[in-house]
């Protein structure tokens, strides 16, 4: 098994998913409604009451990276449902019986969650520009945000696949998705700064990969202050590698 073959398998799986999105992208469009509401309604309202101190940023600017992360998080955390569906119809069994390594299959699937994430990001980016969020339009920064979104989507979609290997039904996956997305979102710096949280919640937020992703995106999109970036990158990378590795080990459980 050469590295080239591993990479080729992962890209093939991602290509497979991209082709499916190309055939039918309804799901992606419906998933845009929620983040749009957060930005347009919650953001605008909180912006006008100025109840939170968000430093030099306006509130709507402050939550733009948060809403971006949240929309990608939603896509990624429910990604395991696709795997359960594939298991139910027999496609997963077929995939796992090919010579392609399980890790490549998991990485490929995670990448395709990244593709979905990028779609969300482009749309929300556009919306943010329309409502006048002052985004730094530097090519490298924007590219960095997209990379962050792909890695972030990989992180939580592989967590979702990991959970799917144990839960194995769509109903349970819906349940667990509902159960963990909101806490992940609220126990992060997505919609309010860490400094106003109670101490215990700050600790939770500090082990939450969502916080690091939002922080990195906020730096690249808005503040241009890169001092935390190395820590952010390390935190997201470590959790992604961890979840991808674990999911690669457990995915076989789905078909046993």
């Amino acid at each position, binding site marked *: *098994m050469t590295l080239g*073959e591993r990479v*080729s*398998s992962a890209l*093939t*799986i991602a*290509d*497979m998913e991209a*082709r*499916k999105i190309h*055939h*039918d992208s309804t799901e992606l469009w419906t998933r845009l409604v929620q983040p749009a509401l957060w930005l347009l309604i919650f953001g605008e309202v909180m912006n006008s009451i100025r109840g939170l101190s968000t430093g030099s940023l306006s509130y709507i600017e402050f939550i733009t990276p948060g809403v971006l992360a949240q929309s990608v998080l939603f896509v990624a955390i429910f990604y395991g449902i696709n795997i359960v569906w594939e298991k139910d*119809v*027999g*496609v997963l*069994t*077929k*995939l*796992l*019986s*090919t*010579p*392609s*390594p399980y890790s490549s299959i998991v990485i490929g699937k995670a990448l395709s969650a990244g593709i979905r994430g990028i779609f969300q990001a482009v749309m929300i980016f556009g919306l943010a520009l329309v409502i006048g969020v002052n985004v730094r339009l530097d090519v490298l920064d924007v590219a960095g945000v997209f990379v962050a979104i792909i890695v972030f989507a990989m992180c939580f979609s592989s967590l979702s696949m990991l959970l799917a290997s144990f839960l194995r039904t769509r109903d349970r996956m819906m349940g667990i998705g509902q159960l963990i997305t909101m806490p992940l979102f609220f126990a992060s710096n997505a919609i309010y700064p860490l400094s106003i949280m109670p101490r215990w919640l700050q600790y939770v937020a500090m082990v939450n990969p969502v916080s690091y992703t939002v922080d990195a995106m906020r730096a690249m999109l808005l503040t241009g202050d890169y001092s935390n970036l190395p820590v952010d990158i390390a935190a997201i990378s470590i959790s992604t590698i961890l979840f991808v590795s674990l999911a690669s080990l457990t995915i*076989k459980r789905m*078909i*046993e």
Partner: protein
Amino acid sequence: MMTDENPAAKAVVVENLVKTYPPDIRAVDMISFSIGSGEIFGLLGPNGAGKTTTIKMIIGLISPTYGSLRLFGVDVAKSPQAARRLLGYVPQNVSVDGDLSGYENLLIFSRLFYVGRDERRERIAKALKYVGLSERANELVKHYSGGMMRRLEVAQALVNRPKILFLDEPAIGLDPGSRREIWESIRQLRKDFGTTIFITTHDMSEADYLCDRVAIMDSGKIVVMGPPSKLKESLGGDVVTFQLTQPGQEVTLPGDLGQVVHQDDSTIKILTQDGHKTAPLMVLALKDQGVEIQSMSIDVPSLDDVFLKYTKRRLDEHGNISEARATRRSIARYSK
């Protein structure tokens, strides 16, 4: 071929294979067999006999509790990926992706099989033509019929060209015409590429028609194994079947007349040396025991009779088939 002692020349060597599930279910219970290269081998048995579990262990999808498995000399437990390069697998459920076109299904899976770019193009075009799907290659597979999906799965084998192809209930849920087509293409695969074929089936006509050798499996064990013709001959003589007008008590026959292999409310089946001579005597013997006979037939033994003799049970087909049909229908419905 069967006497070849070189294990690498064997397509499959299974030794003392066991799979248990908690608490104490022995899904596969100490089975051993080997398959020669280029052979069409069938695992015949009722639903729940352990056939699918056996297949999944051989291709490395589930780990055996005990025993050893070799594919063309490759130890499946030690090098699962090397083993998987040799094999193709068509599971019982539909395994083509309904959300992709027929062409895309072939393309994606050939890439996952590491078929070279140049060969890929040519083989896909040929395979689509062979299974008669060229016209509809760019249509989404969820709009295909069940038979077309199965043909696409055969096309995948044509593109990837595994040395051994595993088919779990290949013709289940298909109409008689499509079944024939699938059987013919399985034979053609072996003829054109020397592919070794391993099928599981609960359908004795399928096993009889396709397989060079069958192993009859029941409750996790292989009860008897051999070429279908030999197995049927081994029963010796004829099977006499009586249809009854009403249910009767359990009957016994003198040993020299024949052996009662099956009795239920409406039929009695008896295995005998020469049915044309013994049948009239049986009629008398049964009458004496108060059995009311409606009609009688004398046949040469079928694989079903072989199964009956060794397991004392019939191959139950109905539940299995309607179940698979329902799955196919629900998949079609869901994806539309």
